[in-house]
């Protein structure tokens, strides 16, 4: 579903900050890939390259067989199929919950207003927030905001969902409600790529874990392999600190 070929990413005016140092990876349909690793290892940058929120400095990204790093590709159309959830929710504060969710599907003519609202309410029901459809984001807790952000992405009926540290900005007691929504999503067969520090979630939900360090994927495997028997020294060191 997603394939990246030797992508590199540099930041800075003269590309002096080398964040991704050559990554090749394939993510299949239905996979639940969790990316872990120390801060600054390039996890988020890698995730953001998958929908070109960051343009890779080198290398190619393919989505459903099409090279999306090709400048001729309409990236907006591609992104309609790739949902993304951010650390800081990024809900639109001037719109109600319902408007937040229905804005994109309606403006992009994927659904009529009525269809979008019906779908939004169905999804809100699913995450237990149907009664907050008329609230503004400022009236919601962090956990509620993130569940709304997930619904907003889902309402576009994406083929894959990217999660960029979705629980890192939450109070500890609200982490669970967001992870529960993500677990349900995984159970429904959604293809997911998740950057997280929630090792319990990774172990339970992932079918593959990527460990990133210094701009590269240095180890990968099933949760049992990574957590039970890590091979790489750096992975061992990281896991001993976080577990």
């Amino acid at each position, binding site marked *: 579903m997603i394939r990246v070929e030797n992508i590199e990413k540099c930041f800075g005016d003269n590309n002096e900050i080398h964040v991704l140092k050559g990554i090749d990876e394939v993510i299949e349909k239905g996979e639940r890939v969790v990316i872990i690793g120390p801060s600054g290892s390039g996890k988020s940058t890698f995730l953001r390259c998958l929908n070109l929120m960051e343009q890779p400095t080198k290398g190619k990204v393919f989505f459903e067989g099409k090279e999306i790093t090709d400048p001729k590709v309409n990236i907006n159309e591609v992104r309609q199929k790739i949902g993304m959830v951010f650390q800081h929710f990024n809900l639109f504060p001037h719109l109600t919950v319902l408007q937040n969710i229905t804005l994109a599907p309606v403006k992009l003519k994927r659904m009529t207003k009525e269809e979008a609202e019906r779908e939004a309410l169905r999804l809100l029901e699913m995450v237990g927030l149907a009664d907050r459809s008329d609230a*503004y984001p400022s009236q919601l807790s962090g956990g509620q905001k993130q569940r709304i952000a997930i619904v907003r992405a889902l309402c576009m009926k994406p083929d894959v969902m990217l999660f960029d540290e979705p629980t890192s900005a939450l109070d500890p007691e609200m982490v669970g409600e967001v992870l529960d929504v993500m677990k349900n999503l995984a159970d429904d067969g959604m293809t997911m790529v998740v950057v997280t520090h929630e090792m319990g979630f990774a172990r339970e939900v992932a079918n593959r874990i990527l460990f990133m360090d210094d701009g590269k994927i240095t180890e990968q495997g099933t949760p049992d392999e990574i957590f039970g028997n890590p091979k790489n020294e750096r992975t061992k060191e990281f896991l001993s600190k976080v577990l």
Partner: protein
Amino acid sequence: MEWLNKWFDRLYRTFIVDDRYKTLISGLEKTLIITLGALLIGVIIGTIIAIIKVFAADNKKLRPLDVLCNIYLTVIRGTPVVVQLLISFFIIFVWAKDGTWVATVTFGINSGAYVAEVIRSGIMAIDAGQMEAGRSLGLSKIQTMKEIILPQAFKNVLPAIGNEMIALLKETSVAGYVAVTDLTKAANQIKNTTYDSINPILLTAIVYLAIVMLLTKLLSIMERRLRKSDKS
């Protein structure tokens, strides 16, 4: 009470005789038309310039447009508005008989330069995550700007736009330079006809002041309403 009677008599002769107050009313009308028209033009120009400047910051193809915008901003902010009025009326729109629309357009173009900076700073104040969220859903840069960034930016800069309107209202008092009988010019005409140099001018000042106070009040009400959906 002798002086009071005298003063009322004076007011009567200055404003009522020959329906001279009607000149003032039509002058006030012109002042308001020019102010509102110019504000509208200014906000439209200012928004366009602000968007070009924001987009040009990370899109090299827009650099030529950005340069044009900078020339506009420099020229407009570097010359007095009276001179701009004179240029409009006597050099550019030489065929114009009625100065009102010339003044409206000129004040609008002038105001646009100031509004542009206000709106640009309003756009820059919006968290980058808002643009990212819009783009991640598949909205284009322009759609995200229109649906998500601008509504929030406008709300943030509304007080500044209100101040621009207040400044504009007062600035239009020089419209008399180009054959517009605005409020100030009307007062001046009455002064010249009646040799009463005190009352017409003072009344004009009071009218400007009253409008400004009214605008200030309306603005604070509007701000309070908009705050409803603000971040806590």
